[in-house]
């Protein structure tokens, strides 16, 4: 039983990291209806830029600030070059445009900073907390706890931003109805830039946490794929859904790896289990746990 809880908690904490990636998707989807496949590439780009500046000798906070500037520039460019010319195109076209964007960002990132794996040290040790392992016998990493703390703060800040600020309300208005938002004088372009900047910021935080854990490397771009089942479970439009979905995916894939793998012939089911889980879930609730209910026929 103790082992079960250890796996469960480890999975939940890993799930927090998935949630962070999914959060970036949700933000952009909410505000512009664009399914941004490039989020994974943005995570990679942000982390790589941050490490790159640190290697050039910049102190930690300066490097973070500079990477944030890079993400802002990226947001402006994306809006100007990709989104604006594609206004009113079907969602699927925009989705494919972001796949193109993914390749572009990956190329630029590796071209400017090189392709080798970098270590990123945030100063948080990835070791079990003594107090917990002494009292309960479970080993829970300090790093994971800090990461989930950061995620919690991030979600709280975003919730306040979306619900209480003027820009946040404008974002929600745009998400509801582009034309109505335009009619009351909200600038679509500004909103899109804002939301891409926020997504870029989330990508930077995600990239730093994942990078500290696994090294800053190309594999970070695959995070986008891990986030998809999370989105499906949680619903595309819900920040809370992204968090809960991430937790479910994280916990279930670890539990499946430990308890189910032996029935299907050995390890490695982590790679597809979340997708199948999401698939089964879709058959029951096509809009996800917290997604907006659409009444349509398929």
């Amino acid at each position: 039983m103790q082992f079960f809880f250890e796996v469960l908690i480890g999975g939940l904490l890993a799930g927090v990291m998935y949630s962070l990636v999914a959060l970036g998707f949700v933000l952009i989807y909410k505000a512009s209806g664009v399914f941004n496949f490039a989020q994974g590439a943005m995570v990679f780009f942000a982390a790589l830029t941050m490490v790159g500046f640190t290697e050039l000798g910049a102190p930690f906070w300066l490097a973070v600030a500079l990477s944030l500037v890079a993400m802002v520039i990226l947001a402006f460019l994306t809006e100007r070059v990709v989104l604006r010319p594609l206004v009113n195109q079907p969602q699927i076209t925009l989705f494919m445009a972001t796949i193109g964007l993914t390749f572009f960002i990956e190329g630029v990132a590796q071209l400017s900073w090189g392709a080798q794996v970098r270590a990123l040290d945030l100063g948080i040790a990835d070791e079990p907390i003594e107090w917990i392992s002494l009292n309960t016998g479970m080993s829970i990493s300090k790093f994971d706890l800090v990461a989930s703390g950061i995620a919690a703060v991030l979600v709280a800040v975003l919730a306040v931003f979306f619900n209480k600020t003027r820009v946040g309300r404008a974002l929600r208005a745009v998400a509801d109805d582009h034309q109505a938002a335009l009619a009351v004088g909200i600038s679509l372009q500004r909103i899109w830039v804002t939301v891409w900047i926020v997504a870029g910021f989330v990508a930077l935080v995600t990239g730093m946490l994942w990078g500290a854990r696994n090294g800053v490397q190309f594999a970070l771009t695959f995070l986008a794929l891990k986030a998809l089942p999370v989105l499906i479970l949680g619903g595309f439009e819900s920040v809370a859904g992204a968090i809960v979905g991430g937790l479910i995916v994280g916990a279930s894939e670890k539990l499946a790896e430990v308890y189910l793998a032996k029935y299907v012939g050995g390890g490695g089911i982590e790679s597809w289990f979340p997708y199948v889980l999401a698939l089964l879930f879709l058959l029951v609730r096509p809009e996800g746990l917290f997604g907006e209910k659409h009444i349509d026929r398929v």
Partner: protein
Amino acid sequence: MLYREAGQFRTTYAEDQQLFPIRQDRIVAILFLLFAFLVVPIASVMPGLDRMIDFQYWYSGVLIPFLIFALAALGLNILTGYAGQLSLGTAAFMAVGAFAAYNLELRLPGIPMLASFILAGVIAALVGIVFGLPSLRIKGFYLAVATLAAQFFVVWALQKFGWFSNYSTSGVITSQKLVIFGYAFDTPMKRYLLVLAIVALMALAAKNMVRSSIGRAWMAVRDMDVAAAVVGIPIMKTKLLAFAISSFYCGVAGALYAFAYLGTVEPEGFNLDLSFRVLFMIIIGGMGSILGSFLGAAFIVLLPIFLDLSAGSIERGFGLALPSGLVSNLTLIIFGALIVFFLVVEPLGLARIWQIAKEKLRLWPFPH
């Protein structure tokens, strides 16, 4: 002047329903097939010419992959372009085809190669139907994620269960010798002709299919499924049929990929990148267009070769050695930029450009 259908009256139903109703189109199509089937092979065995052009490279490095990818793009185009079901699992269905053909040849001695290709396609179609089942409940991005499940699951299963690869290490299979009716396709030229014949047949079949009742049902479902259901199109059957036929095409393409192109394949080779490549082919070529599948495949196959060549000539021209990472990253950047460019400038792809050119050509040289 050259391209004008004025005066071509169609007086019978048969004439009205032919594949290429305009005479000039017919002539171009026949000339193109003649060129591909006769001129290219004859040129390649002509003495002297092979000193100027490296035909072996053209066959096995350009033409065969182009044809095979065109076939896979055709399959995806049927599903995504015609039936409107976004799929990111093309490579998985290709993998099923490749491994099915290998296992059929391995475990059923004496089975004709063509039969095993067709059966491989059928097996891929069955897998396609299974992973197409979610499409009855969901659409759009959600469906794309469902097909991603196919992508990861198939590659995992092929690696995990040794039976599929006859217990070779890490799932690598080496395809059997390509022998059909006792005739060995052992040179690049022979393989090219075989692939060309299969692809040409299947492309004509696809062109025929998309204008038939089933093709029109696909397009109706793509454009508005509720309306399609209202006019009496069975949605379930139509969607699953789209998945089955699309996967059949991808399966045959996968079998050819293993048998006629690479010879040795592993499950990891059929990864998500390959799926994306095929997806780009139909985006750039044109969704919902048979011709577009070929144009897109040509573009995606030729672009890296072209970039490599130009990088090589830059290196030689300026006498400097480019870092190896530079070219591959530049390829990525150009790739991504081109996709965005195409979506912005011509969302309907190269096939649409060709159509516009045709309309211009009809009026040429007197535009009034």
